[in-house]
């Protein structure tokens, strides 16, 4: 029988692999872990559908999950490997259970191979609070503005991914389902961008856990209108940050994020 405990474990596993991908600098390892994390997120989606079909309530509790400050690639990869192996025991014999299990057998194989080659080990600086970007000279005010922006927006993107996923799972409306999917995909890209930047600055932290008051939406119209106001505020934050930082690489990036929010607002308006 599929239990909420499995959903909770998959949620934690998605985050553990995702944030490991942000923390590790090696682009090849980062890329494979990110792909695995996105597969874990799809597992969560399918599991959520199965739980809904079985009239089983699930939630986004994480049981005081911590993001440990691992100091090397191998420390972090060994931790992730252990978490994947622990989850294997929770799967049942359903088709979905089989799919999740075989996917993770491959993850275990891949990560074990990475650990067999010492060339894959390296120091991790994602948690050391050095608060500087490679080859960038930002003054303290710019650094603080960027720091606050990254904490605000990484939490917000995580929140949006989970809230939209929850609403998507319980909607009967095909148009709404598709809009939620677009918004989820967009937020995954933003979370990836911000998470990688936080790691480069040594301030990588898990977004805080969502309380059910945040994702059990009773008034969708108010939720969407508040969401549009938040998108407007995020646009302004991006615009202000781009102006304050005034950097030839970073400013165009934040403008790019700002302009993407326009289409998010258009998508959200279709929900009204």
């Amino acid at each position, binding site marked *: 029988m599929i239990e909420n405990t499995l959903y909770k474990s998959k949620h934690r596993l998605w985050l553990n692999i995702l944030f490991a991908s942000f923390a590790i600098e090696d682009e090849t390892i980062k890329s494979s872990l990110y792909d695995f994390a996105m597969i874990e997120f799809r597992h969560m989606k399918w599991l959520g559908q199965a739980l809904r079909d079985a009239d089983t309530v699930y939630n986004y*509790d994480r049981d*005081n999950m*911590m*993001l440990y400050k691992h100091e090397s690639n191998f420390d972090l990869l060994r931790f992730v490997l252990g978490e994947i192996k622990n989850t294997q025991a929770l799967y049942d014999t359903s088709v979905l259970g089989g799919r999740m299990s075989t996917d993770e057998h491959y993850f275990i194989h891949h990560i074990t191979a990475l650990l067999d080659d010492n060339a894959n080990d390296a120091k991790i600086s994602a*948690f050391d*609070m050095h*608060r500087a970007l490679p080859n960038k000279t930002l003054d*303290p*005010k710019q650094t*603080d503005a960027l*720091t*606050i922006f990254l*904490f*605000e927006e990484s*939490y917000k993107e995580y*929140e949006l991914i989970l809230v939209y996923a929850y609403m998507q799972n319980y909607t009967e409306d095909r148009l709404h389902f598709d809009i939620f999917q677009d918004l989820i995909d967009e937020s995954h890209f933003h979370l990836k961008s911000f998470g990688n930047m936080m790691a480069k600055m040594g*301030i*990588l*932290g898990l977004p*805080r*856990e*969502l*309380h059910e*008051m*945040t994702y059990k939406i009773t008034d969708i119209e*108010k*939720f969407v209108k*508040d969401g549009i*106001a938040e998108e407007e505020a995020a646009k302004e934050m991006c615009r202000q940050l781009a102006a304050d930082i005034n950097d030839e690489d970073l400013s165009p990036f934040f403008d790019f994020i700002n302009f993407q929010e326009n289409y998010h607002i258009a998508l959200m308006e279709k929900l009204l």
Partner: protein
Amino acid sequence: MEQDLQSEELNEEIIEHLMHPKNYGKLDEPSGVGVGHDEKTGEYVIFYLKIESENIQEVSFATNGCQDTVVLGSMFSEMVKGDTIENGKDAVEKMDQRLSGMTAQQQVCAEMVLTSFIAALINRENRLKNASEEMHVIKMKESCEIKPEDEEKQ
């Protein structure tokens, strides 16, 4: 605490609260649950208390608010955790008196944290009187939606 938040630069203590907020989440079998809710923006802080013999044994909080709310909630929850209810109320008063030194946005965030704590104490008293109140909700008078004139004052 207020000095830290007002300072020009973020210090390591505040970054640590941002990376790992203290006492964040829910409490099982709480003695009191309170919410400070900003109806205009939908932002809230929910505060959980576990009290034994008038001592605040455990606390936790959660919010969908901004990072100022997270840092203030993290710091305030550390202040009252393990202390008496009376000292917890004193901490609210002391922090209230110092709000004028904060930015307009920080004042609203701090008020929401303090309000949720007070609401949790009210909920605990109501529960002791056998009221079947799951949580006590207090609507915020001031909204976290900062007006341009407020920004200019900062």
